[in-house]
């Protein structure tokens, strides 16, 4: 399997998840990367849906919402 970069806020990881869908990866990495359930997903800066099948070299960001409190 091949490497995809996953980013969520401050956290990032290269993962061997090419061939998996975004939905599968989101569920698998939700705790590890602290992925916000509200996070929109972007691939190379463009919105992408949960059924997208990841490819080697993809850079996926789960866009973390701005911190609200203070």
């Amino acid at each position: 399997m091949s490497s995809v970069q996953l980013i969520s806020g401050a956290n990032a990881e290269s993962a061997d998840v090419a061939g998996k869908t975004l939905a599968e990866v989101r569920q698998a990495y939700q705790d590890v990367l602290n992925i916000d359930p509200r996070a929109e997903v972007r691939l190379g800066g463009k919105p992408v849906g949960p059924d997208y099948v990841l490819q080697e070299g993809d850079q996926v960001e789960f866009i973390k919402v701005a911190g609200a409190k203070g």
Partner: protein
Amino acid sequence: MGMDIKVVGIGGIGTWLLPPLARFLTFSHPDTQLTLIDGDAFELKNRERQVFNTIGNKAQVHTEMLRDSFPELDVQAVPEYLTSENIALHVSDQSWILLCVDNHATRKLISDRSEELENVRLISGGNELTDGSVHVFIRENGQNLTLPLGNEYHTEVAFPEDRNPGEVGCDELVTHEPQLLFTNFQIAAQMLSRFYAILTRGNDQDEDLYCDLITGNCRSIRRRR
């Protein structure tokens, strides 16, 4: 003429940000005018996360504290919430704005006002329980150098679901969720790091900085293309 710096929100993040900021300004930029803006008052329950020495309006209490510690610095208080009615009076051209509020409605208000100005440097911090973020909006000569706070990546700010306490007239209508003082402190520190970066390296800065207290990671992200 010295810098004009407005610190909006003197709560969990603001009370940690002010002392080092004032100390730095006193010894590096003593001709700064520093204005603290907040319509809320300290309550005893705030002692868990917030620094203060007496009960009273937050902006006024901290203005007196800073004047005691740094009498050389010009510190003023505006004991009001910023609203659509008064924002033009308090947020003006050439300002630095360090935004430490606890709701996106106020963030949007100030970001929208900033888009009316020719030159402004806005640094906004906010957090959840163990993570948070700092966002930078800079305008120079009437042009956006970075994206505004509410943008395609941050629709939660562009279309806020919470309320500005000044607009509804009662801060009890603002939701209060658990917070951790270490996260407040971390975001205050990162806001100051952004301030120093802009001050010393110029306006070409990334829009978003995320921090995670548990993993220890920080990441800066450029949004504009």
